[in-house]
Every structure is written in structure tokens, then in C-alpha cells.
């Protein structure tokens, strides 16, 4: 039996339909070159944001346990296909790419609005995001989506238990684990440790090659690119300053105790 589900309507199926938001980021091993107030994109190796990968893995685990459909979505200018194909190869059901040159200058809020617009058109029970991207590290999109869609947010989760319409999520907090309970639909953002993402099997890679990606653009979502004006402006981007501080331990000047204390502090 196919049950059509909409947000807010009592569900008769225990399936959990999940949307996972993906971002393409430069490989953390890459040597990043600053160009103006951005980074030079040519020649970079791009990967799926590792935190989003935890999101994909979690979605696949939930699907295996509860049934449902997993859809991945990304928004941006070129190159998003690679991260969508990776998620398809891992086993997600559908991939949506909001591909529009108008997204080039959009900031986190603009991207969140575009994603929210696209997501609000599909029935879902759960949205999973990475807790942040490894490049800009703003940690913005998950929270903004929850706000724009008017649903709860639990950020940086390391544990998740779903039963029926409610769930329990564990978050790591200073010195312990906080457990929160809420009902679906909700936005959850994934922290490292939530799971161990699977490697796409070769058969999955071949299957993903044949799967279709669904393309959307700003006009089809009824968004005018000019509305995506950034309220924030990046003023500058600089390399971190490297400070090398050596400490000279002099046999005559310090006591053995001080020396031992120092060694202990660094090991």
C-alpha cells in the first residue's frame, strides 16, 4: 500500500522519508590558495563534506531499520554531480541538484532559503545535515533550514534512536552527553562519531552512474536571484599566522621538578 504523507498529517506508515543536504568542499589535504576574498578553485580536489557523509550514512541506516526514501540535495554552481553520485553510490534513492549560476554569490542564508524552498515541495519526515562544512565551518545551514521550515533543530548529534514519530538524540556537551527527545519532522545535524560511513561498493558506483539526477533552478523554485543578495559581506580572508614558540630548558636554571612538570605537560 502506498501512503501519501504530508507534513502535519497523521501517518499510517512507520517509514521515515529523509532528505540529506550535501555540500562539495575542497579535500582537507588540499593546499588552499587565497584569491581576493575567496579561494582559488581551479586545481582543487573536491570531496563530499565529511559531516554530510555522516548524514548520508545515518539516513541509510534509518532506511534499513524503518523503511522510507532517502533523497540527497545540493545547491550550487558547477560540480555538484560528484557529491550526489557519491551518495547515490552509497545507496540513497534520489538526488536533486539545484544548479544555477545565480547561486554563485549566495551566502549561507541564501543557500538555506533555496534549499528550504525545494525541500518544502517534497514530503519528508527528517532532514539531515552535517553540523558544519569543513571549508567555511559556519554551521549555518541546518539551523537556518529548521527556522525557515518551522521545525525543531537538534545540532551536532552523536547518537540517534527513532521510534515511530519521535526520536531521541544524543549530543556531546562539555563533559558529558545531553539526550534530547522530540518529534518528527525535524532537522538534525551530524557530528563526527555518529557512525562510520560505508565505502560505496563497486556495484553501487556502477548503479549510480545510471541513476538520474533531478535538476532544479532558481526560476523553477520561484526565486529571483536578486533576492539572494548577501546581508553579510566578507571583508578579507587571510592565512592563519604560524607562531613557533620554542622553550629552552636550561639544566642550570630550572629544577628537575620543573623540567619533569614540563615534559609531563606536553606528553
Amino acid at each position, binding site marked *: 500500500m502506498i501512503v501519501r504523507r504530508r507534513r502535519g498529517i497523521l501517518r499510517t506508515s512507520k517509514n521515515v522519508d529523509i532528505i540529506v543536504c550535501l555540500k562539495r568542499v575542497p579535500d582537507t589535504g588540499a593546499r588552499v590558495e587565497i584569491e581576493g576574498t575567496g579561494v582559488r578553485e581551479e586545481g582543487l580536489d573536491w570531496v563530499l563534506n565529511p559531516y554530510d557523509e555522516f548524514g548520508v550514512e545515518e539516513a541509510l541506516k534509518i532506511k534499513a531499520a524503518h523503511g522510507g526514501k532517502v533523497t540527497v540535495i545540493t545547491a550550487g554552481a558547477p560540480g555538484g554531480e*560528484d557529491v550526489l553520485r557519491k551518495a547515490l553510490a552509497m545507496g540513497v534513492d534520489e538526488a536533486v541538484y539545484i544548479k544555477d549560476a545565480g547561486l554563485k554569490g549566495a551566502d549561507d542564508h541564501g543557500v538555506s532559503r533555496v534549499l528550504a524552498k525545494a525541500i518544502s515541495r517534497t514530503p519528508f519526515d527528517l532532514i539531515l545535515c552535517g553540523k558544519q562544512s569543513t571549508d567555511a565551518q559556519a554551521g549555518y545551514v541546518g539551523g537556518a533550514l529548521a527556522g525557515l521550515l518551522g521545525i525543531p533543530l537538534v545540532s551536532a548529534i552523536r547518537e540517534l534512536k527513532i521510534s515511530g514519530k519521535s526520536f531521541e538524540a544524543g549530543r556531546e556537551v562539555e563533559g558529558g552527553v545531553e539526550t534530547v527527545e522530540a518529534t518528527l519532522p525535524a532537522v538534525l545535524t551530524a557530528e563526527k562519531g555518529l557512525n562510520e560511513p560505508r565505502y*560505496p561498493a*563497486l556495484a553501487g*558506483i*556502477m548503479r549510480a552512474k545510471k541513476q538520474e539526477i533531478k535538476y532544479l533552478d532558481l526560476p523553477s523554485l520561484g526565486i529571483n536571484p536578486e533576492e539572494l543578495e548577501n546581508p553579510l559581506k566578507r571583508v578579507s580572508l587571510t592565512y592563519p599566522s604560524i607562531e613557533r614558540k620554542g622553550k629552552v630548558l636550561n639544566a642550570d636554571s630550572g629544577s628537575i621538578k620543573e623540567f619533569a612538570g614540563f615534559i609531563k605537560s606536553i606528553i
Partner: protein
Amino acid sequence: MDFELTPEQKLVRETARKFADQEIIPVARENDALERFPWDLIKKMAPLGFLGATVPEKYGGAGLDYISDAIIFEEVGRGCSSLRTIISVQVSLAEHTILKWGTEEQRQNYLPKLCGGEYLGCFGLTEPGAGSDPASMKTAAARKGDGWVLNGSKTWISTGSLANVAVIFAQADPSKGYKGITAFLVEKGTPGFSSRDITGKMGLRAANTAQLFFEDCFIPGKNLVGSPGEGLKIALDALDNGRFGVAAGCVGIMQGCVDACVKYSKERYQFGRPIASFQLVQDMIARMCVDMDAARLLVYRAGHLKNRGVRNTIETSMAKYFASEAAVRAATDAIQVHGGYGYSNEYPVERYLRDAKVATIYEGTSQIQKLIIGENILGVRAFV
């Protein structure tokens, strides 16, 4: 010409690389030291599709192209050459022989089991008296009823004691010389078929290598591969596949050498400076990198020809000859860069040398590769 990998090939690399880093490398040293066959890794590789990458999906493989195949062999080879040898034999020699020359019944019977890791395969060509010159093999196949009876022995057969199915070459008609050589599938447990492990190997210590014995061993007619007399052709064709995987595996060894040397030379201080800053050390690492890239490009060229279905014996020989010799050079220098520490198995570089060496010997020695290449360029055959 396009030097970019396709998105699928990049994903294959990502999967293979992660598998090598997370699963193979952590156990490679111990498997080598204890001469322990990597059963658990084989079990883990099967669902990922590594045991049948280039076999069509309908026979249980992944249906990938040969560049992807090279990427898998390279990454597995970077982790452990014993394991790379096991999958070379499984995929390139056993599965591809059955795929190309086997009957439909043989394909359906064996390929899903081999690709799925339920079966291991081996390839028995070499004999005590016939190595570089396989045409001189003595193992005899005599017709009996609707089948054949094998008598003789094979040696240096990778996975020989463990394989559930062996591709075996035997002389069915000595009067015809090499045109009498015929290929068969022999199942483990067939009466008259036995094996004995070869121990004390310099390298490939986690892989199984064995002598095989056939004493009045009856093989049903349905286990004939190809036609009687086609055996040597089948064997040489299989080696075109096998050598490709060996070459790619050697690129992996070189990558392992480069990675180890870059890390070590920056951390190791002598004369108050990292040894990476010494020109003579940079000389070794630079040569290693150039050799590695050259070998990888030769492998990719051969893979490109395979993808197009073009004959590639010479190009594959070139890749195998160059990559295996370059891997020995790279591993020798990698030990040198590591100084005394490189001489111990605390670091992987001494294993790289022991494992690289065999690649200049098996699937045709470097001398034999040069004779194949020489004949091609000179038009004069140096051996019969």
C-alpha cells in the same frame, strides 16, 4: 587525450583508497611476519566488488572498466602485495579465462562464486621443468571416455592449496608441440589432485603458493576450457590481463614508497636539519616519483587499449617490465632514505622490496618481457 579520471573512476579510487588505508595497511605487516593468509580481508572485499571488478554484472562482477581495475590493483598493492597477488590470480587469471574461453555453463557455474568470494581460483601453468618456456610442459592429458586423465605436476602456483577451482594447462598431444597444450578446470577435491605449500618465500608471505600434483586425475569433458590445443593461446591471453594487474600493483608499491619517504624524511633530523633538505635524499625521492608516474601512465595506456578492445600485449609487457623493475628501485631507495630503520619491519619499506622483487619474476620475467618487446620492434624472435 584526457588525463582526468571519470567521476566513477574517482569514486572507485576513493573506495579502494579508504579500504587500503583502513583495512589492509593496519594488518599487512603482521600478515607478512606470520605468513598469514588474509581470509578476513577477502571476505570484506567480496561485497565491495573487488573480487570481480571487470567481470560483467550478469556473472556477479561489477562491470567496471580497466582504468578502474588498475586503480583497485594500485590501491590494494599499496597496502599489501600478497593480497594484490591473490586478487590478480582470482580476477585477471582465473575469472577472465573462464569469462573469455569458458562455456556458458562454466561461466554461470563458477563466475558468481569467484566474484562473490565463495570460491578462490588459481592458474597452473608453471612446472618444475617449464617456467619461462611453458610450451615445454610435461603434465599430460590423455583422453578417457568423455573426459581426460591428468598426470604430472605444477609448481609456484599462487593460491594453489586453497583454490576451489584451478585453471590447469596440460599437454594433450606431444606430437603437436605447443599446439597440443590444452586448458582444463580442476575442482579441489577431485580424486588424484593434491597440493603442497611452498614455504620460506622472500616476499608475498601472506599469499599461498603451492605445488600441485595430478595422479591419474580424471577430469570430465565439460571441464575442458576452449578447444583441445588452444591452451597456450589461452594462457598467453590470460597473462595479458595478469601482467596489467601486476604492473598496477607495482605502481601501488611505488606510491607506498613515496608516501613513506616523504613523511620520514621530513621528520628525521640529522646534522640539525630534516634529511629531506639534503640534495642526495631529494635525488632518491625525485627519481622514485618520476618512475612512479611513468609506470602509472604506462599502465593507464594499456588499460585504455583494453577498454577499447585493442590488442595490447606489447603495451602491457612494457608496463609490467617497467613498473616491476621501477618498484624494486623505488623500494631499495626507500629503505636507503629510512637508513637503519628502513632495514627493519617497523617500517613497510623492506616489505615493499621483498614484495616488488617477485613482480620481476612471475607472469613472465623481466627478461621475457624484454624479449617480447624486442621481437615486436626488431621483427626477430629471440626464443621459440
